Protein backbone atom coordinates (compact mmCIF):
# COMPACT_ATOMS: atom_id res chain seq x y z
CA UNK A 1 0.00 0.00 0.00
CA UNK A 2 1.22 3.50 -0.78
CA UNK A 3 2.37 5.55 2.18
CA UNK A 4 3.02 9.27 1.84
CA UNK A 5 6.12 10.62 3.57
CA UNK A 6 6.01 13.72 5.79
CA UNK A 7 7.64 15.72 2.99
CA UNK A 8 4.98 14.66 0.47
CA UNK A 9 2.24 15.48 2.95
CA UNK A 10 3.70 18.91 3.73
CA UNK A 11 3.96 19.95 0.09
CA UNK A 12 0.43 18.80 -0.73
CA UNK A 13 -1.05 20.45 2.34
CA UNK A 14 0.90 23.67 1.78
CA UNK A 15 0.44 24.26 -1.93
CA UNK A 16 -2.30 21.91 -3.09
CA UNK A 17 -2.17 20.23 -6.45
CA UNK A 18 -2.97 20.03 -10.13
CA UNK A 19 -5.43 17.17 -10.52
CA UNK A 20 -5.72 15.35 -13.82
CA UNK A 21 -8.98 13.56 -14.59
CA UNK A 22 -10.21 12.04 -17.85
CA UNK A 23 -13.24 10.54 -19.50
CA UNK A 24 -13.15 6.78 -19.83
CA UNK A 25 -11.98 7.35 -23.41
CA UNK A 26 -9.05 9.47 -22.24
CA UNK A 27 -10.10 13.09 -22.82
CA UNK A 28 -8.32 14.99 -20.02
CA UNK A 29 -9.50 17.85 -17.79
CA UNK A 30 -7.29 19.46 -15.14
CA UNK A 31 -8.37 21.39 -12.08
CA UNK A 32 -6.10 23.12 -9.57
CA UNK A 33 -6.73 23.21 -5.84
CA UNK A 34 -4.59 25.33 -3.53
CA UNK A 35 -4.61 23.23 -0.38
CA UNK A 36 -5.13 19.62 0.58
CA UNK A 37 -5.58 17.54 3.67
CA UNK A 38 -3.78 14.23 4.03
CA UNK A 39 -5.35 11.62 6.29
CA UNK A 40 -3.93 8.27 7.32
CA UNK A 41 -1.18 6.85 5.14
CA UNK A 42 -2.61 7.61 1.72
CA UNK A 43 -5.89 9.53 1.70
CA UNK A 44 -5.76 13.04 0.21
CA UNK A 45 -8.79 15.32 0.42
CA UNK A 46 -9.38 18.42 -1.67
CA UNK A 47 -12.12 20.96 -1.06
CA UNK A 48 -13.54 21.97 -4.45
CA UNK A 49 -15.61 24.93 -5.58
CA UNK A 50 -19.00 24.29 -7.19
CA UNK A 51 -17.46 25.09 -10.58
CA UNK A 52 -14.69 22.53 -10.06
CA UNK A 53 -17.18 19.85 -9.03
CA UNK A 54 -19.22 20.57 -12.14
CA UNK A 55 -16.10 20.41 -14.28
CA UNK A 56 -14.94 16.94 -13.21
CA UNK A 57 -18.11 15.25 -11.91
CA UNK A 58 -18.85 13.33 -15.10
CA UNK A 59 -15.22 12.23 -15.45
CA UNK A 60 -15.04 10.92 -11.88
CA UNK A 61 -18.34 9.07 -12.30
CA UNK A 62 -17.24 7.25 -15.42
CA UNK A 63 -13.53 6.97 -14.63
CA UNK A 64 -12.39 7.52 -11.02
CA UNK A 65 -8.64 7.32 -11.73
CA UNK A 66 -6.83 10.62 -11.18
CA UNK A 67 -3.22 11.85 -11.27
CA UNK A 68 -1.97 14.52 -8.88
CA UNK A 69 1.08 16.79 -9.06
CA UNK A 70 1.98 19.15 -6.20
CA UNK A 71 1.05 22.77 -6.87
CA UNK A 72 3.13 25.94 -7.18
CA UNK A 73 6.84 25.48 -6.59
CA UNK A 74 6.05 21.93 -5.52
CA UNK A 75 5.70 21.09 -9.20
CA UNK A 76 9.47 21.02 -9.47
CA UNK A 77 10.77 21.01 -5.90
CA UNK A 78 8.44 18.23 -4.76
CA UNK A 79 8.84 16.09 -7.83
CA UNK A 80 6.20 13.48 -7.10
CA UNK A 81 3.14 12.23 -8.88
CA UNK A 82 0.34 10.49 -7.02
CA UNK A 83 -2.24 8.29 -8.67
CA UNK A 84 -5.30 6.46 -7.49
CA UNK A 85 -9.08 6.25 -7.48
CA UNK A 86 -11.08 9.29 -6.41
CA UNK A 87 -14.65 9.93 -5.36
CA UNK A 88 -16.71 13.03 -4.71
CA UNK A 89 -18.30 13.44 -1.29
CA UNK A 90 -20.25 16.64 -1.76
CA UNK A 91 -17.62 19.23 -2.65
CA UNK A 92 -14.77 17.12 -1.27
CA UNK A 93 -12.65 15.11 -3.67
CA UNK A 94 -11.28 12.10 -1.80
CA UNK A 95 -8.30 10.42 -3.42
CA UNK A 96 -6.90 7.10 -2.28
CA UNK A 97 -3.29 7.19 -3.41
CA UNK A 98 -2.23 3.78 -4.67
CA UNK A 99 0.81 4.73 -6.76
CA UNK A 100 3.60 7.27 -6.19
CA UNK A 101 6.14 8.23 -8.85
CA UNK A 102 9.19 10.48 -9.04
CA UNK A 103 8.92 13.21 -11.68
CA UNK A 104 12.38 14.72 -11.32
CA UNK A 105 13.52 15.45 -14.89
CA UNK A 106 16.23 13.00 -15.86
CA UNK A 107 16.87 9.30 -15.41
CA UNK A 108 14.78 9.09 -12.22
CA UNK A 109 11.63 10.34 -13.97
CA UNK A 110 8.81 7.78 -13.69
CA UNK A 111 10.57 5.83 -10.92
CA UNK A 112 7.80 4.13 -8.95
CA UNK A 113 8.31 4.94 -5.28
CA UNK A 114 5.45 3.22 -3.48
CA UNK A 115 6.92 -0.20 -4.26
CA UNK A 116 10.17 0.70 -2.50
CA UNK A 117 10.58 0.07 1.23
CA UNK A 118 9.40 3.16 3.13
CA UNK A 119 12.89 3.68 4.62
CA UNK A 120 14.34 3.74 1.10
CA UNK A 121 11.87 6.43 0.05
CA UNK A 122 12.88 8.57 3.03
CA UNK A 123 16.54 8.06 2.14
CA UNK A 124 15.80 8.91 -1.50
CA UNK A 125 14.25 12.18 -0.39
CA UNK A 126 16.95 13.20 2.07
CA UNK A 127 19.71 12.62 -0.48
CA UNK A 128 18.01 14.82 -3.08
CA UNK A 129 16.25 17.59 -1.21
CA UNK A 130 17.08 19.58 1.91
CA UNK A 131 13.59 20.89 2.66
CA UNK A 132 10.75 19.05 4.36
CA UNK A 133 8.01 21.15 2.80
CA UNK A 134 7.28 24.42 1.04
CA UNK A 135 8.96 27.65 2.20
CA UNK A 136 7.01 29.35 5.01
Amino acid at each position, binding site marked *: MAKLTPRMRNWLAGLGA*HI*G*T*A*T*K*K*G*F*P*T*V*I*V*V*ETAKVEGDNIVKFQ*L*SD*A*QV*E*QIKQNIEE*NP*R*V*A*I*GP*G*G*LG*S*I*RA*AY*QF*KGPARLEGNTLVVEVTEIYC*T*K*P*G*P*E*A*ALRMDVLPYESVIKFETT*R*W*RDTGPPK
Partner: protein
Amino acid sequence: MKLPKEIVDVLKIKEPDDLIVYLTTSSVDGKCNIMPSLFTDVYDDEFILIPDLFAVKTKINLNENRVGVVTIAYPSEGKKWALRGPCGHIEWGVPDNYSFQGIRAGDVLKKWGDWEEKEPFASLPEDIRPAVVAQRGVIVLKVAECYTYEPEVSGKK
Protein backbone atom coordinates in the same frame (compact mmCIF):
# COMPACT_ATOMS: atom_id res chain seq x y z
CA MET B 1 -6.56 28.89 -31.86
CA LYS B 2 -4.08 31.74 -31.92
CA LEU B 3 -2.96 32.51 -28.41
CA PRO B 4 -3.24 36.03 -27.05
CA LYS B 5 0.06 37.87 -26.70
CA GLU B 6 -0.26 37.74 -22.90
CA ILE B 7 -0.11 33.92 -22.95
CA VAL B 8 2.55 33.74 -25.66
CA ASP B 9 4.80 36.06 -23.66
CA VAL B 10 4.50 33.88 -20.57
CA LEU B 11 5.27 30.62 -22.41
CA LYS B 12 8.10 31.93 -24.61
CA ILE B 13 11.67 31.03 -23.69
CA LYS B 14 13.19 33.49 -21.26
CA GLU B 15 15.14 32.19 -18.26
CA PRO B 16 15.35 28.47 -17.42
CA ASP B 17 13.55 28.67 -14.08
CA ASP B 18 11.11 31.53 -14.71
CA LEU B 19 8.10 29.31 -15.36
CA ILE B 20 6.98 25.80 -14.49
CA VAL B 21 4.12 24.09 -16.27
CA TYR B 22 2.44 20.72 -16.05
CA LEU B 23 1.56 18.68 -19.10
CA THR B 24 -1.28 16.25 -18.43
CA THR B 25 -1.92 13.40 -20.83
CA SER B 26 -4.02 10.27 -20.64
CA SER B 27 -3.92 6.70 -21.84
CA VAL B 28 -6.65 5.78 -24.28
CA ASP B 29 -8.63 4.21 -21.42
CA GLY B 30 -8.40 7.24 -19.13
CA LYS B 31 -5.35 6.80 -16.92
CA CYS B 32 -3.81 10.28 -16.58
CA ASN B 33 -0.18 11.24 -16.26
CA ILE B 34 1.04 14.65 -15.12
CA MET B 35 4.56 15.81 -15.98
CA PRO B 36 6.27 19.03 -14.87
CA SER B 37 8.45 21.04 -17.22
CA LEU B 38 10.74 24.00 -16.63
CA PHE B 39 10.96 24.60 -20.34
CA THR B 40 8.38 25.85 -22.83
CA ASP B 41 8.34 27.83 -26.02
CA VAL B 42 5.68 28.87 -28.51
CA TYR B 43 5.65 28.38 -32.27
CA ASP B 44 3.41 30.32 -34.65
CA ASP B 45 1.38 31.65 -31.68
CA GLU B 46 -0.57 28.39 -31.35
CA PHE B 47 1.83 25.52 -30.68
CA ILE B 48 3.34 24.99 -27.22
CA LEU B 49 6.70 23.20 -27.35
CA ILE B 50 8.27 21.24 -24.49
CA PRO B 51 11.55 19.30 -24.69
CA ASP B 52 11.30 15.57 -24.10
CA LEU B 53 13.69 14.89 -21.24
CA PHE B 54 12.84 11.32 -20.18
CA ALA B 55 9.09 11.89 -20.65
CA VAL B 56 8.50 8.15 -20.46
CA LYS B 57 4.80 7.85 -19.64
CA THR B 58 3.84 11.01 -21.46
CA LYS B 59 5.19 9.49 -24.66
CA ILE B 60 3.40 6.20 -24.07
CA ASN B 61 0.15 8.13 -23.69
CA LEU B 62 0.77 10.33 -26.72
CA ASN B 63 1.50 7.30 -28.86
CA GLU B 64 -2.06 6.09 -28.28
CA ASN B 65 -4.05 9.22 -27.37
CA ARG B 66 -2.95 12.51 -28.88
CA VAL B 67 -4.40 15.09 -26.56
CA GLY B 68 -2.94 17.05 -23.66
CA VAL B 69 -3.48 19.91 -21.23
CA VAL B 70 -0.81 22.44 -20.21
CA THR B 71 -1.45 24.23 -16.90
CA ILE B 72 0.70 26.97 -15.41
CA ALA B 73 2.14 25.75 -12.11
CA TYR B 74 4.49 28.56 -11.08
CA PRO B 75 4.24 31.50 -10.90
CA SER B 76 0.50 31.29 -11.43
CA GLU B 77 -0.74 34.64 -10.11
CA GLY B 78 -2.74 36.14 -12.96
CA LYS B 79 -1.91 33.12 -15.13
CA LYS B 80 -4.39 30.48 -14.05
CA TRP B 81 -4.73 29.00 -17.51
CA ALA B 82 -5.34 25.51 -18.82
CA LEU B 83 -4.49 25.07 -22.49
CA ARG B 84 -5.86 21.94 -24.12
CA GLY B 85 -5.58 20.46 -27.57
CA PRO B 86 -4.05 17.87 -29.87
CA CYS B 87 -0.66 16.86 -28.54
CA GLY B 88 2.07 14.80 -30.13
CA HIS B 89 5.71 13.88 -29.88
CA ILE B 90 8.32 14.61 -32.52
CA GLU B 91 11.20 12.27 -31.81
CA TRP B 92 14.70 12.54 -33.20
CA GLY B 93 14.84 10.18 -36.15
CA VAL B 94 11.43 10.80 -37.67
CA PRO B 95 11.58 12.00 -41.30
CA ASP B 96 11.92 15.76 -41.73
CA ASN B 97 8.64 15.86 -43.62
CA TYR B 98 6.65 14.12 -40.85
CA SER B 99 3.87 16.51 -39.93
CA PHE B 100 1.82 16.86 -36.76
CA GLN B 101 -1.13 19.23 -36.92
CA GLY B 102 0.59 21.18 -39.67
CA ILE B 103 3.94 21.54 -37.92
CA ARG B 104 6.90 19.95 -39.74
CA ALA B 105 9.25 17.68 -37.78
CA GLY B 106 12.39 18.91 -39.55
CA ASP B 107 11.61 22.53 -38.68
CA VAL B 108 10.89 21.73 -35.03
CA LEU B 109 13.94 19.53 -34.47
CA LYS B 110 16.27 21.95 -36.24
CA LYS B 111 15.24 24.82 -33.97
CA TRP B 112 14.26 23.08 -30.71
CA GLY B 113 15.92 19.65 -30.95
CA ASP B 114 18.82 20.81 -28.76
CA TRP B 115 17.00 22.85 -26.14
CA GLU B 116 20.08 23.44 -24.05
CA GLU B 117 21.41 25.75 -26.76
CA LYS B 118 18.47 28.05 -25.98
CA GLU B 119 18.27 27.63 -22.21
CA PRO B 120 21.43 26.40 -20.50
CA PHE B 121 20.40 23.75 -17.98
CA ALA B 122 23.61 24.34 -16.03
CA SER B 123 22.19 27.60 -14.72
CA LEU B 124 19.45 25.74 -12.84
CA PRO B 125 19.76 25.02 -9.11
CA GLU B 126 21.33 21.60 -8.58
CA ASP B 127 18.29 20.02 -6.93
CA ILE B 128 16.03 20.66 -9.91
CA ARG B 129 18.53 20.37 -12.74
CA PRO B 130 18.26 17.26 -14.94
CA ALA B 131 21.07 14.95 -13.85
CA VAL B 132 21.77 14.03 -17.44
CA VAL B 133 20.74 15.91 -20.53
CA ALA B 134 19.45 13.49 -23.13
CA GLN B 135 16.77 15.17 -25.16
CA ARG B 136 14.83 12.64 -27.22
CA GLY B 137 12.65 15.05 -29.12
CA VAL B 138 10.04 17.76 -28.71
CA ILE B 139 6.48 17.52 -27.41
CA VAL B 140 4.04 19.70 -29.34
CA LEU B 141 0.60 20.81 -28.18
CA LYS B 142 -1.63 22.71 -30.60
CA VAL B 143 -3.87 24.84 -28.43
CA ALA B 144 -7.53 24.33 -29.30
CA GLU B 145 -9.06 25.82 -26.18
CA CYS B 146 -8.07 27.79 -23.14
CA TYR B 147 -9.97 27.73 -19.86
CA THR B 148 -9.30 29.25 -16.49
CA TYR B 149 -8.57 27.08 -13.48
CA GLU B 150 -9.42 29.88 -11.05
CA PRO B 151 -11.44 27.81 -8.54
CA GLU B 152 -14.65 29.86 -8.50
CA VAL B 153 -14.96 29.98 -12.29
CA SER B 154 -12.92 26.90 -13.16
CA GLY B 155 -13.58 25.67 -16.68
CA LYS B 156 -14.75 29.00 -18.06
CA LYS B 157 -13.33 29.52 -21.55
